């Protein structure tokens, strides 16, 4: 079963969503779940030795949060593509805000497809990741 896609038009915005402050536990949980055991994400000594203030989040943890936000909004099984560019590192205690806006709606092979610009923004306004998704939407 997949969700019935929502009706989307150019300018439709996703709901406001912000995370709780991220913790080292979030990083460790993602490390285990994904298999990405790069120590810069859980070992402060190593992270600082190469010039970081502390450990920092896996880029794909932040991207995963953004994809969860999109699925919560658009429904399971509606995403056709998801692309992200990593910009700023995400640190422990960061509160992340996910944003999304429909920039195009066009006829696809199996119905209408919306293009969505999306991003994850840190509290200081810096963009951690910016992305583009395409998703099936109601006719």
């Amino acid at each position, binding site marked *: 079963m997949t969700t019935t896609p929502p009706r989307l038009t150019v300018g439709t915005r996703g709901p406001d969503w912000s995370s709780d402050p991220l913790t080292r536990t979030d990083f460790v949980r993602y490390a285990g779940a994904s298999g990405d055991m790069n120590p810069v994400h859980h070992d402060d000594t190593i992270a600082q030795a190469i010039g970081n203030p502390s450990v920092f989040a896996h880029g794909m943890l932040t991207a*995963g949060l953004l994809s969860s936000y999109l699925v919560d909004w658009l429904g*399971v099984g509606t995403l056709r593509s998801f692309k992200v560019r*990593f910009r700023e590192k995400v640190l422990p205690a960061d509160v992340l805000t996910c944003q999304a806006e429909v920039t195009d709606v066009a006829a696809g092979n199996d119905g209408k497809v919306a293009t969505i610009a999306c991003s994850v923004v840190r509290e200081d306004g810096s963009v951690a990741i910016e992305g583009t998704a395409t998703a099936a939407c109601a006719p």
Partner: protein
Amino acid sequence: MANVEAIGTVIGKVSFPVELGKVREFAKAVHAGNPEYDRNAPDGAVAPPTFLMTMSLWEPEGGPNMPDLGMDWLRVLHGEQEFEYFAPIRVGDTLTVTTRITDVYTKPSSKGGELSFAVFESEFEKQDSDRVAVSRMILVEPPKRS
């Protein structure tokens, strides 16, 4: 200096099962709240969009069969990641993923020096041989400071 001769190299092919416990663990790690990830979903739990990253857990010991890309791995960053989805991936599926290097190139940096890029494309097929997804990872090596 990027080694363009690496373009086209298949660095790995592996099959792995999509398991309920792994999907739930991953869904929790990316704060996925949707009940479709639940085991009670009628057609089986759907894996979250970025679940495909767990393919790294199925790499052979010692890592993939990586040619020399002319890049310094200690300095390499994950620049971009892209997924295309053709069908839902569900618990109970067996995925076969083939990963190849599809591009290696350099670009001048606006801050001087040269950026090196490598693109890894992974094609995922289901047990019935249908292509269900493609992922592309772009790694970047920033210019060396002189």
